[in-house]
Every structure is written in structure tokens, then in C-alpha cells.
């Protein structure tokens, strides 16, 4: 299992388009992937899950994956979040 943290930096956070990009990327991997914000865990492959999480600018989230491609999954998702533009 691999887990990394990241701060949301773009203005509109993980809403709308960024969230759908995130889900699309997460769905490429076989690992079970979760996004953790505060105490709560959300399914990274679910647009409904991510949208209901509602991560905004300057909030910390953690991305956690478990499975054969966990390293690839976590790294690419971290990269995606850090490169989000509005």
C-alpha cells in the first residue's frame, strides 16, 4: 500500500473538469485507489465520490492505492493534481 499527500493549489479545486480528469486517470489503474480528506475516504474512480468530497484550494488530501500498479497510480495522480489549472 502506498499513500502520498498533496495540497490542492488550483483556484477551483477538485471540482467539475479537474474531478473528471482525475477519475479518468484513476480508472486506468487496477489498484484500489482512495482519496482521503480529513477522516473520510472516497473512491478515486467515482465522480460522485469525488464531487461529494468537494476539495478546494489549499486543502490537503491524501491519495492511497493498493495493488500491483499502486506506485504508478499514486505518482501519476499526484502529478495530475499538482498540475491542475483552472
Amino acid at each position, binding site marked *: 500500500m502506498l499513500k502520498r499527500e498533496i495540497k490542492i493549489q488550483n483556484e477551483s479545486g477538485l*471540482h*467539475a473538469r479537474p474531478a*473528471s480528469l482525475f*477519475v479518468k486517470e484513476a480508472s486506468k489503474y487496477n489498484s484500489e485507489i482512495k482519496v482521503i480528506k480529513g477522516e473520510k475516504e472516497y*473512491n478515486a*474512480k*467515482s*465522480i*460522485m*465520490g469525488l*464531487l*461529494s468530497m*468537494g476539495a478546494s484550494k489549499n486543502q490537503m488530501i491524501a491519495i492511497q492505492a493498493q495493488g500491483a500498479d499502486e506506485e504508478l497510480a499514486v505518482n501519476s495522480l499526484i502529478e495530475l493534481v499538482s498540475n491542475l489549472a483552472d
Partner: protein
Amino acid sequence: MKGLGTSPGIGIGKIFVYKTTEIKVIRENIDDTEFEINRLDKAISKAGAEIERLYKLTLANMGEKEAEIFKAHKMILEDPEFYFAVIEKINKEKVNCEFAVKETSESFITMFEDIKDEYLKERAVDIKDVSTRLLRTLLEIESVDLLSINEESIIVAEDLTPSDTAQLNKEIVAGIVTELGGRTSHTAIMARTLEVPAITGIKDILKNVKHGELMIIDGTTGEIIINPREEEIFEYENKNKKIEELKKKLQNIKGQDSISKDGYKVEIAGNIGTPKDIDKVLENDGEGVGLYRTEFLYMDRDRLPTEEEQFEAYKAVAEKLGKRPLVIRTLDVGGDKDLPYLNLPKEMNPFLGYRAIRLCLDRKNIFRTQLRAILRSSTYGNVKIMLPMISNIKEVRDSKEIIEEIKEELRKEKIPFDENMEIGIMIEIPAAAIHSRSFAKEVDFFSIGTNDLIQYTLAVDRGNQDISYLYNQYHPAVLSLIKMTIENGHEEGIWVGMCGEAAGDEKLIPLLLAMGLDEFSMSASSILKARYLIKNTSKEEMASMIEEILGLSTAEDVEGALDNVLSAN
């Protein structure tokens, strides 16, 4: 049958009944859960294919931005959280698949509706949309959407919403017939913009037609023929030819000035909703834009447009118009035009409530963003600002103060703008018309918004079918207010235009010319006809009849008198 002809032209085509069927879901107890899950999988893939098709169609017909929404729908449809929640319900509660889908989507919808964020709140609508599609597929209810029309059709519906009309393909839609709405309903206005013949306000039409039957509509007279005979088809095809011939005549006066028989020059401009409407205005030789309805920039989306987005839109139009004037009306929402993401309160009297300038002066950030974008665009053409729903002088002064502040900001940031940009107001509230002399001292121009002026003067809700017979632009009281406004404007040396539907009304144009109206702004399709009329009217001659016409007792008398003038010319 007969209704209100609200967009001219003749349409012949097969009836396409557009209605949303009510979906009834009953809870059933089942044993074979495998079977239900199997049905769910099949329905998801079928609904997914449907969404895919809508995406491609919208992409081809409208563009990527409009199509984007269907990508989001597909994701919601295929969402694992949603899927497993439905499966769990089927397995645990041993219920039928429809019931599980309905309950699950309802709980998601409630969850999203409860979120404080305005954008997320809006997503509840998408979840509703997707689950309805899925339920329709499961229940095998034929789903209708306007994009699926693939032969010359006449759409028959209760009414069309902005998202419906966004899907209209005017190449293939021969006409629109709706049960609700008058001349100024959304359907009517959009039909005129798209130049699709339309008839509105025919009660019970849905009960009287069948999908696939042939129908002829005459959008000028409001007449409808269901299952026409051979000779009727022939007759209307002929009529259509004549209309085409008149169109040719009008093409010949392109490039000419709009000057009356006795030498008075006026300006005939077009009304637009989106930057791409400008092409139609230029095609019809419009001399400018007298009304740019900016609210369309704010509609069919999930959050406010940024300054940059607005700037690009305004700039595009300003550049295309060059020296010709562009009157940009600031945001006019509220009333019948809701923006879900603003969470506007529900009101008892929305038309008398929190809308237009009232909203803008309250939510100043929205207003400031728009004003900055307009000011920035002003160096790219001949831009003017117009404020809607003005009822007292303070609103004008407050708005001008904000505009001054923004000018100062821009100067500091060294961003160019037109220092002399004109600021005008709409005259659409009787108080503003009556008090127009004072208003004229504060602004650079007036534009009379007849749609609301009529509604407020006559106390007639223009969307209410039962009282639409009272909504009448020929009412002597309305015409007196118009005359008063023009005179007061001229006394103070400002120009006066009109951007309501009345400005394009053939019967009223000669009278308005005589009253001294300087600018007529209308649907692009009416521009050349209006010029043709102006060229054939003598202002002085007509002016000698004003007193007599305004002295008539009823709107019907006035309309009759104007009819006579029109046929004499």
C-alpha cells in the same frame, strides 16, 4: 386550428411530439437477483450508447462546449459508487432494479442538493437527468430528444426550455408549435432568432395530434392544418414561394440607408443573445446592435462567467461591428430567467422582485466583473452600456459611480478603454417613462424595452396564457408612454431607441418613426423589412396622425387605424 403566430414563415413537416413522460416506479419483491443485476447492466450500456450518440450529435451541430455535458453524464452513469449502491440494494432488499435505481439516485440527489457549494448543488440536476434516462431505458419508455429528429419535422410541445432550443437543428426543424407562451416567450424569441416558423399558445394541441402526422403551419397568421389535403399542400408551397420572392426584394435594399420618404434617417439595428448571432445581423445589413442580451453568457452553465470569458465575447462582437454601435445590456436575470447557481430566492412576484439592476447593485462582484469586461472591450469598437430595469435615479447614479471606480482601476492598471463610452438605460418601467425628463439629464441614451413596459403598464403577466389577450402593444396608454419618453429624451438632447419586440412590428414602425424614434432594434430577420417600410413612409405625413391615433379609445381601434396606414403604403 389557430394559435398565435410568433415567428413568421411557412413550415411543412411531420409532427414530432415532444413530451416528457412521467415515470412511475413500483417496488416489487424479487427472488432472482442475478436477473435484476443483468437487466441493470444491459440498461446501463444501452443508456450509455444513447448518451454517446447525443454527445456526437451535439459536437457536430453545436460544438465542443455544448457537448461537454454529455461526457459528464456518461461518467455519472458509469460511476462505481452509484453502481455498487444499486447492486447492494437489489441484493439486500431483494427489490426490482428500477426501484433500486430510483432510491439510490434519490439519495445521491439529496446528498448533492444539501452541499453548500453552488456548483455541486447543480450536479444534482445531472444525476436526476441520468437516472431518468436509465429508468426510461429499464421501463422501455421511448425517450425523445430534439437531437434525434432526422427528417423535416414540426415540433409540438407544451413549451421549450433554453436547453431544448439549444439542441434545435434549424436545417431540419420546419416549425415549432407550443401550448404555452406568447410573442415574447423564450420559445417565440428563439424561433425568430433561428428563423424557424413558430406558433405558440395553442391549448390542448398535444391532445389533438399524433406523432408522425403531416402538418402545415403558418407562423404569420398562426394557422395550423393537421393532415392537409393535396391542394392545401400545393397552396402553402406557393405561399412559401411568394415569401421567398419578397425576401429577394428585401435583399436589393441591402447596403442602403434607412431614410424615410421625406428624408429622415433612422438606425435599424439587431438584437443578439450570443456572439454568433452577430452574423445574422450583419447578413441582414443591421446598422448596429441595439441590444446584446448578456444573460446568455451566464446560462446553461454551472458558475458565473469570468471577466476574461465575458471580455472575449464582447470583444468579438465589437470587432465584427467596427464603427457600428454595440449596446451591451448588463445582466438581466431574475423574473422568468433563473440562474440555478445563484440560488435566487423563490418569489411570489418574480417580475416585481429581485432581478436585473436590483440584483447587480446588491451582488456587486457580479456587476463589477461584467462592467470591467465591457469597459475593456470598449476600445475594440463602438461600445455602449445599457442598464436594465431602472426605476429610480439612485440606481443610475450608483451604477455610474461603480463604472467610474472601475475606470479608475483600469487607468491605474494601464488597461485601455473608451473614456467616452455612452451609458444609457432601458425604459421599461412606467415610472421611468413618466419621469423620463429627469432620467434624460443623467444618461446618454434611452432604449425603450416594450416587452416589460407593456407588462408593467397593463399589469399583465406576459407568460400567463389566460390573460394574454390583455397584453397588447397597441394600447393607447403604452403608446402615450412611448411618445412621452421620446419627447423627453429629445428635450434633453439624447437619442432614444427601442429594443422590444414592438420595434420590429410592421404596424407600429410608421407611428414610431413619426414620434421621432432614432433607433429601432429588432430580431435580425425583421431588419430589412423594417427598412423597406421606413423607405416607403413619410414621417411628416404620419406625424399629422399621431394625435388622432393616440386619441382612439381602444387598442383594437389603434391597431385598425395602423392597419389602414400600412395597407395604404
